[in-house]
């Protein structure tokens, strides 16, 4: 119940903080990357096309506090959003020229394959299956899967609890990596409740409909910090979730460009983190991970 009270407040405070970070400019952005003016790219590359067009379409989540969340006024904020802005700036595209597209977990590969978006920055875990359909740039962040429970719950200490207690239920999002990675720990299918969004899982945890929620720790930490002491994390990370930027399969040049852009803008990267996910209690400012090879 307390979870609800604070949700809007937290969202609004993020808006306020991001607005403050850019010194009261019109555009709410945390990243002070200067938008490149008429950058030069080799003809025929994705970068040249995008720079030429002066705009790009980016897929992100609209329901992920601190990573990609749409406010009531339609404005987007979060770490993923800022990362996308850094990349766009290097292409000579101002934040207001980015067309945002909502890409929930279940559609990400499809919209990339279908060419509906130029890239996806949406808490997107790099894994082999996905890499068969699309190319990942990055990673730009390394998360790990954990479990969130009500604060007064002392029984659940890790994923093994669900193997031993076949009546205990756990919630995750359909189509997400965590929802698949928890399965080996479950005694039966019925223990897993799947929704479209994590906020529905958090709601259900709050009302006692499920016993736990599992996904990447940073996402859970967002809910914990909003919940005013109602939720807590338990146990160790039991997976590694490197977040990448999804682009069209085989676009090696664009992939390398993204990796180079991130490496060249460490300061903006840190600022982006601190203005968004860095607001969550218990998180540490990450260092940009070593990029994977572009394939």
């Amino acid at each position, binding site marked *: *119940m307390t*979870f*609800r*009270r604070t*949700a*809007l407040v937290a*969202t609004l405070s993020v808006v306020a903080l991001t607005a403050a970070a850019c010194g009261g400019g019109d555009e709410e952005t945390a990243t002070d990357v200067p938008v490149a003016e008429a950058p030069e790219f080799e003809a025929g590359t994705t970068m040249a096309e995008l720079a030429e067009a002066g705009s790009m379409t980016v897929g992100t989540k*609209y*329901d992920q506090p601190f990573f990609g*969340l*749409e*406010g*009531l*006024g339609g404005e987007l904020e979060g770490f993923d959003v800022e990362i996308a802005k850094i990349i766009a700036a290097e292409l000579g595209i101002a934040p207001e020229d980015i067309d945002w*597209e*909502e890409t*929930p977990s279940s*559609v990400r590969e*499809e919209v990339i*394959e*279908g060419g*509906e978006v130029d890239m996806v920055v949406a808490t997107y875990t790099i894994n082999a299956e996905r890499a068969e359909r699309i190319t990942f740039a990055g990673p730009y962040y390394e998360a790990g899967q954990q479990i969130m429970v009500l604060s007064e719950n002392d029984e659940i200490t890790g994923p093994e609890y669900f193997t031993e207690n076949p009546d205990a239920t756990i919630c995750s999002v359909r189509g997400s990596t965590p929802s698949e990675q928890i399965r080996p720990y479950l005694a039966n299918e019925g223990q897993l409740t799947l929704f*479209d*969004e994590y*906020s529905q899982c958090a*709601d259900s945890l709050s009302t006692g409909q499920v016993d736990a929620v599992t996904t990447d720790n940073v996402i859970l930490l967002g809910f914990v910090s909003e919940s005013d002491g109602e939720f807590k994390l338990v146990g160790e990370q039991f997976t590694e979730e490197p977040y990448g930027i999804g682009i069209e399969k085989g676009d090696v040049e664009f992939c390398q460009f993204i990796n180079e852009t991130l490496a060249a803008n460490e300061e903006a990267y840190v600022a982006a983190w601190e203005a968004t996910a860095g607001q969550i209690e218990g998180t540490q400012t990450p260092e940009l991970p070593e990029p994977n090879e572009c394939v």
Partner: protein
Amino acid sequence: MSRQESVLYDAQGPKARRRTLIGTGVAVLVLLGLAYLVVQRLAERDQFSMELWGPLINPGNESFEAVWRLIGEGIRNTLIAAALAMTLSIVLGTVIAVARLSLGRIGRIPLIGFVEVFRGLPVVVLVYFGVRVLDDVGVDLSGLPGGQVLWGLVLGLTAYNMVVFAEIVRAGVASLPKGQREAALATGLTPGQTMRIVLLPQAFRTMLPAIISQLVVVLKDTSLVTFIANYDELLSQGESIRRNLDNPIQTFTVIALLYIAINYALGRLAQYVERRQSRARTTGGEAEAEATDGIEGAPVRTGS
């Protein structure tokens, strides 16, 4: 209403009236008791607090404007999708109905199979096919005005509703007096002309109430897209509001009331049109018009 009562019971005598009065008292008490339980439950959980309701009902609230702008957009998008799906379904449904009526006994079989398959599938599955599968197999709808998701949704809804309309139109044509067709043919019209000029216009007139009733179904089904892709119709906007304000009961109450208001108005319109038509058809036969009250002339309004 008065008519239907008289089917089941006589005008009441003093004893029966007393019993009804007692029954009324008991029923009122029970219903009030239930209502009280619900209200008390809500109050206990602080569900009436202005913190939760304010953004929806208090114009002075800081979120009020944003919330109602979202809702307004949602209603508009819901109506757009429903109107498009409705128009397409009527056109395609008529084509199927005419084809079914003009094909021979054997030629009709594949068409019936086609109709049965579409009628047997959940709308949500057809909408999924429209929005996702079409895209995956390379049908590009994104060039159309309104975008890929809108048209995927419209096509999914159309796939389901066109066969419903085909049935409505077929029943409408079948309900016309035989003489209409015979007379038309006798005056030298071809079968095609007979259908187009004589039979269909009349069928549409009798089927108008059913068509309006079906519009309610289409309108409700637009909300299914929430689970499939991002199209900002009324329910999706409600989700967006809930996500920000975290007041599910309040937001969905408002959303539900809006749906009810729109659909109730449509339902009344259907009834009104039907009464007017029945009166026009059976001058002096008021009873027949009344007897169909409640069925709304629509054997098809079955929930989906």
